[in-house]
């Protein structure tokens, strides 16, 4: 495996996040494809209740079943709620009691309302998958605000719960998310003012929350600067495009100069949302050197 972006993310949990609409899922899918291509046993995990990753890999929604995509890559859309139910079933000593508990409205209210429970269960699942079955788990995380909640949950729960298995689990998972050799955060952004501003904010909060800076910044959807020299009386769409490109360049420079970690860039390709685009981006990532800013 060559030394590059992919080599630097080749094991443990890769947590992909960013502001809504910047192409998180596309980047997560492309990263997974590139990792699998590089020979890593890869699990791409989605936690959005409305499944969307399958669109990037050219398969039908599976309703939660694991799907083999290419050799070395498995896609799974996780339902945290089902995981919790399964856990109760295996742990409760009396089967009848377990069934009654699972059917009880109070149980549902507890599970829906218990803060941090879903987040912990997702991380516990990741931990289990990394125990021999997969080399790397790419988690297509929620958008910025919720992503922070996902990574903060272990610390919050560990602090609020005094003892018992919950506290032990939370403490162990806090260890996972704050270990730079086992958990790496990938922030996705576009070269636009608001996503860029939010990316810096999120990066700072993440570092404060888990004590580890993001492993990689992906500047996504960079339009190629392929315009001829400006002429007087140019058509309005060209004038607009020129201004967008100038703004993109400004934001791109701001991102690169303000970022102290690794950065990589992905082009905006004239392709519709789908597998062809994800594969094209994967090739791009596979060739990308790990670029220190």
């Amino acid at each position, binding site marked *: 495996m060559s030394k590059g972006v992919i080599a630097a993310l080749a094991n443990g949990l890769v947590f992909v996040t960013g502001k809504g609409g910047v192409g998180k899922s596309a980047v997560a899918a492309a990263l997974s494809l590139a990792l699998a291509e590089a020979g890593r046993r890869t699990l791409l995990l989605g936690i959005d209740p409305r499944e969307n990753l399958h669109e990037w890999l050219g398969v039908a929604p599976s309703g939660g079943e694991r799907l083999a995509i290419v050799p070395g890559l498995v896609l799974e859309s996780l339902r945290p709620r089902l995981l919790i139910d399964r856990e109760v079933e295996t742990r409760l000593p009396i089967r009848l009691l377990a069934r009654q508990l699972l059917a009880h409205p109070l149980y549902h209210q507890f599970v829906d309302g218990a803060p*941090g429970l879903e987040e912990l269960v997702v991380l516990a699942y990741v931990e289990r998958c990394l125990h021999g079955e997969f080399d790397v788990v790419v988690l297509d995380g929620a958008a910025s605000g919720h992503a922070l909640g996902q990574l903060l949950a272990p610390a919050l729960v560990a602090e609020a719960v005094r003892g018992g298995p919950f506290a032990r689990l939370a403490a162990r998972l806090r260890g996972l998310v704050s270990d730079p050799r086992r958990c790496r955060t990938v922030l996705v952004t576009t070269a636009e003012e608001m996503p860029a501003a939010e990316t810096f904010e999120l990066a700072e909060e993440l570092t404060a929350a888990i004590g580890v800076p993001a492993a990689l910044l992906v500047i996504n959807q960079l339009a190629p600067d392929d315009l001829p020299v400006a002429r007087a009386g140019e058509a309005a769409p060209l004038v607009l495009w020129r201004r967008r490109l100038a703004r993109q360049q400004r934001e791109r420079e701001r991102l690169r100069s303000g970022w102290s970690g690794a950065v990589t860039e992905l082009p905006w390709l004239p392709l519709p949302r789908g597998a062809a685009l994800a594969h094209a981006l994967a090739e791009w990532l596979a060739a990308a050197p790990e670029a220190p800013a």
Partner: protein
Amino acid sequence: MKRWPRLLVFVGAGGVGKTTLAAAAGWLSARDGARTLVMTFDPSHRLRQTLGVGAEAALSEIPVAGAPGGRLRASLLDARTTFDRLVERYAPDAVARDRILGNRFYRTFSGSLAGVLEYMAVERLFEVRAAERYDRIVLDTPPTREALDFLGAPRRIVEFLDSGIVRLAFRSWFDDSGRPRLTRRLGPLGRRVEAGLDEIVGVDLLRDMVEFFRAFGPLYEGFRARAAEVERLLREPETGFLLVAGPGEERIPETLYFARRLREHGCHLAGVLVNRLHPPLESAGPWPPLLAFLSRRDGEGLRLLAERLGEIPLGGLPLLGDEPAHLAGIERVAGELETALADLG
């Protein structure tokens, strides 16, 4: 949009430009002479940046400097601040108040409890609306995983309050030595159940939660009455929703889904606005290939969406050369928004 509703709610997926459009709508409304408040529940505080107000907007409504006629104010929601204020308002006495504010569970989770941000959004909205200091309120909705979660938030809170969990919390679950009473009475079987419970969640955690719900007891009635009124407010004819969508065919299923959810909820959908459309290319070019692709994609998407929306009014806003990140650029967006709103009929 023929008539401006007293409460205008912007909804839509993350990253489509809701916050900027909400600010622009506030600007338009103030220009037309209406006392207007723009409220946002965006934790990343982008409206704050756009409107140039400081963190104090989380506590009160701050005038937006440079807005037309000085009639525009902005307010930011912070779940924790609003929650604390609610506790202070509804707690029957200082003892009850301190018991909640001091509960470890509350201190750690009041900002992150499931649905709290959404509920606090509508709660604060109601508070402002009831005070009648404004002719119009423009609301930028929270970026939830399911972008319409906040619609159901009041109902979920009421259901939660009506459910057994609250009544149950008032029973004496734990004896003086801190052991669960129920399982003690059950003898050896009880010990097994207790061990099972402890194995799953930990009895300590249960005890903290029970304490939390009990501390909240005196507040329930106020919450319940308020949640029902908020629910009504979201459905009344004086409340209009604008659904903001990204351009391109691939966004259509999501847009149709939001539109359906709104209608199912009994909300009045004033229209759908497709934001940031790449310009149509009239001549053959040559154009940069990416621009040509995006232009075609957006034109086709808009046409298909119009077909599928049927009766629902549809408007479009063009991509701008410079997206405003500050008030100075809002006027330009406001102009485009005004045109798009007129298109809604």
